[in-house]
């Protein structure tokens, strides 16, 4: 080929979300993370002979809620199957899952990618129980069955994702929906949201799919983006460097894991032949039969979903679409925003302070605004003080630093207690600075008079800089206008 080959990635995601029910999928044992090993267990979760599974209705309800939230078809008949494999974390050595008749079929999710909305298609959602966890010690391994039997929904996308950014956007949209309907805690570090990505590449225009690689162990969206990008590059590199070999030999089906230290995907195991899980219908459970009334009852009582809230923010609060999307992505942040909105009507400013200023300050702390200890009312007060001209934008940034340092301290008190935070209203004091700036920047005055508005903003900035952000912006504006017009 004479021209460089155009490659395209094809990605499908399998998202496992642990449902936040009180008890497990098939038993009354508590569904709780972080307890002492093997304390939240009973005869069902340890696979005792004679124990029988009994389906948790709350888990069914949450799965149906999710299905309704993505506008999917809810199956009025679905059933469970046994999936056989031997591993110590599987107490019966078979998982109870839904093989060919899942509870939710189809559906779609809207997410924003690089400022553009994109619709992603979901293939299916099914219910299944989680496995326990192996813990390795120097001379032996132990199994913790606390997680065994925790209800999961597995959300399988169509292979409709074409970049790491799209994958992250889709994943975050799914997470947002799960949180809005209160179906899952979605804590990726604790494993209540786990994502596997199936990645393949092909030459643009090619119809079929090439062999795919499954990537596991991506415990954050940023890791997922890195992992998928790395895997796409690796595959393209392989195909390019071994162009003479048969395609299916260059990349053969395998499972890789993301190594965050090495920043590369690492081979876990090859799939020489398809695993034989010997699926067959679970005889200890009856099929799930749902009525139209049940499904409609859930559909009609769905809470506001992220997309609906985003649309509302755009239409009612006139937020830019991107800000509305970003602030609605995390329900708790959106709720925080709305709480602040009760005390301060400047939605754009609040949004900016939440998404840019405080998010930036919190970035390295590992906390979010929600658990920072800063109440929404304090944020509202901060923005209101700027709007009223009590403080300048520049001073507000210092006040925000102080709020971070002493969460819970009222920003009005912070300002009152610090003489440095009082804006300068003394006309004479500011006039000296204005004169100095005009004298040193005559070219800008000329430019402004020639119709360049930016030049005026520059001059304002210079005065503010000299005043170390303390000059009242209104007085600076007025003085500059007066002086320039008389020049």
């Amino acid at each position, binding site marked *: 080929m004479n021209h460089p080959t155009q490659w395209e990635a094809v990605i499908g995601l399998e998202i496992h979300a642990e449902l936040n029910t009180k008890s497990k999928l098939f038993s009354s044992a508590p569904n709780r993370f972080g307890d002492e090993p093997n304390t939240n267990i009973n005869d069902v979760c340890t696979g*005792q002979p004679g124990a*029988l599974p009994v389906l948790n209705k709350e888990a069914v309800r949450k799965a149906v809620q999710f299905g309704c939230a993505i506008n999917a078809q809810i199956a009025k008949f679905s059933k469970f199957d046994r999936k056989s494999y031997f591993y*110590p974390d599987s107490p019966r050595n*078979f998982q109870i899952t839904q093989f060919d008749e899942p509870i939710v079929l189809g559906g779609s999710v809207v997410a924003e990618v690089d400022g553009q909305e994109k619709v992603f298609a979901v293939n299916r959602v099914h219910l299944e129980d989680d496995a326990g966890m192996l813990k390795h010690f120097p001379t032996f391994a132990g199994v913790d069955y606390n997680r065994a039997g925790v209800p999961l929904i597995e959300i399988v996308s169509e292979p409709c994702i074409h970049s790491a950014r799209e994958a992250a956007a889709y994943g975050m949209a799914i997470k947002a929906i799960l949180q809005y309907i209160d179906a899952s805690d979605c804590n990726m570090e604790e494993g209540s949201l786990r994502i596997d990505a199936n990645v393949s590449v092909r030459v643009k225009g090619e119809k079929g799919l090439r062999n795919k690689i499954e990537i596991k162990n991506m415990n954050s969206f940023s890791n997922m983006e890195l992992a998928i990008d790395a895997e796409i590059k690796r595959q393209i590199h392989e195909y390019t460097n071994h162009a003479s070999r048969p395609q299916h030999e260059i990349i053969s089906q395998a499972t890789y894991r993301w190594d965050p230290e090495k920043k590369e995907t690492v081979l876990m195991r090859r799939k020489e032949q398809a695993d034989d899980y010997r699926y*067959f219908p679970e005889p200890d459970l009856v099929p799930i039969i749902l009525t139209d009334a049940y499904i409609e009852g859930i559909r009609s009582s769905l809470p506001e979903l992220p997309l609906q809230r985003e649309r509302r923010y755009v239409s009612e609060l006139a937020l830019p679409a991107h800000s509305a999307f970003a602030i609605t992505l995390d329900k708790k942040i959106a709720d925080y925003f709305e709480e602040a909105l009760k005390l301060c009507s400047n939605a754009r400013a609040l949004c900016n302070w939440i998404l840019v200023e405080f998010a930036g300050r919190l970035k390295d702390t590992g906390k979010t605004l929600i658990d920072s200890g800063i109440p929404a009312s304090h944020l509202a007060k901060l923005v209101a003080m700027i709007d009223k001209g009590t403080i300048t934008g520049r001073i507000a940034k210092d006040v925000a630093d102080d709020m971070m340092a002493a969460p819970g301290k009222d920003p009005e008190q912070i300002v009152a207690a610090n003489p440095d935070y009082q804006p300068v209203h003394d006309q004479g004091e500011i006039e000296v600075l204005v004169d100095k700036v005009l004298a040193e920047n005559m070219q800008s005055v000329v430019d402004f008079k020639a119709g360049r508005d930016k030049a005026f903003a520059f001059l304002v900035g210079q005065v503010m800089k000299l005043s170390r952000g303390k000059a009242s912006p209104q007085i600076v504006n007025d003085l500059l206008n007066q002086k320039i017009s008389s020049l």
Partner: protein
Amino acid sequence: MHSLSAIEIRDKFLRGEISAVTIVETFLKRIEKYDHEVGAFLAVFNERAIQQAKKLDEKRKAGHKLGKLAGVPIAIKDNIHVKGELSTCASKFLTNYRAPFDATVTRLLEAEDAIIIGKTNLDEFAMGSSTENSALQKTRNPWNLKCTPGGSSGGSAAAVAARFCPLAFGSDTGGSVRLPASFCGIVGYKPTYGRVSRYGLVAFGSSLDQIGPFATTTADAALLMEVVGRHCEHDSTSLDAPQEDYLSSFNGDIKGMRIGVPWQFLEQLAEEPKQVFSAALEKLKSLGAEIVDVDLSILKYSIAVYYILATAEASTNLARFDGIRYGQRSARAKTLDEVYDFSKEEGYGPEVKRRILLGTYVLSAGYKDSYYKKAQQVRTLTIQQFKGIFQKCDLVALPTSPFTAFEIGAIKDPLQLYLEDIYTIAANLAGLPAVSIPEGFSRDGKPLGMQLIGPQKQDVRVLKAANAFEKVTDYHKALPELAK
């Protein structure tokens, strides 16, 4: 006293004619004297039973209300949990496994003041038709100690036939209650699938398993059904139906009842069992029942279907016995794979291994469609054919087994043994209630059983007809030599 029925013993106790301790001691003495010959029990609860009897005597003395089974000793097959006691399933794998909870039937029995007297032998994990597959001991037929008691609930059947206790529970996946009942000359009943909770029964073929009673009379079996035949929230396949009233319908009146017999299916039956069965049908006729010929040609596939479905389910049900969490772990094992491989190799007997292999095979990719799925389709056809037949008749009658009890070790070919279940399996495939009642004896003095099968949920009808037959026959009153 040992030859009295459970109801008679209970009534004597309630009337104050006998103490619970005396009842229990009588039966414990019989077990001590004869069970070394029979081998029915894997565990005898001497102290536990006496303690319970003492409490019951005090309860009666204090004038408290007493249960429907007050003072009646009962034996439980060793694949049904009694909390704190071993549940070995007659497997080496579980010789150290203590039940962590009570089976629902155990709980219901004790709530009605029954006294659990011990756990009985079975084919390992209930896989077999003669109890010879027990990894722990041999059980002999009280009517002829050279013979097997049938299986897989052979220990429970032998215990009741030898009058070691008036009642027992077994489990029936393909005939495991009815066949040994027939071989041992007693009543054995498999309820409608879902009538009795499976919670606490170690699963073999989950879609086929039912716990069922052994008794010397249909009334005793009915009494047990009144106690345990109720909805259970721990078992999702439990029928959502109220408890049935059996005994009040036992008026002996089956006039006009239509009883279907699939004569075509019985062509292969040998002369002697055919004669005994025909004579039993005549008795039913004399009671006013109408005998009608029915077509159950689908039954010829039932053994093949059963050994695919039951083993498929079993291969996964038994996967949990891996040496990791409970049961025996091989001492030789050094790696995870060795724990799995050696523990199973050492823990399971040959029949269990054979069935796990078979079940794994029929579910494997490439074979599932031609075996498992095909078998499911035939199962559906079987259910449909029965539905059709029950438009024409009220019950179906069949011999319980084509043979009488055979000598221990006589049948070496496992496939030959599988044929023992030819008449019993269909009721499990279709989830139907079915009873085996004594219908006579062979010339060499071995009992034979007749089976009555009813439509789903018609448990009362099945036992009522059996009771009517019992009222005009004496076979159930005959005692083996060691019980005379």
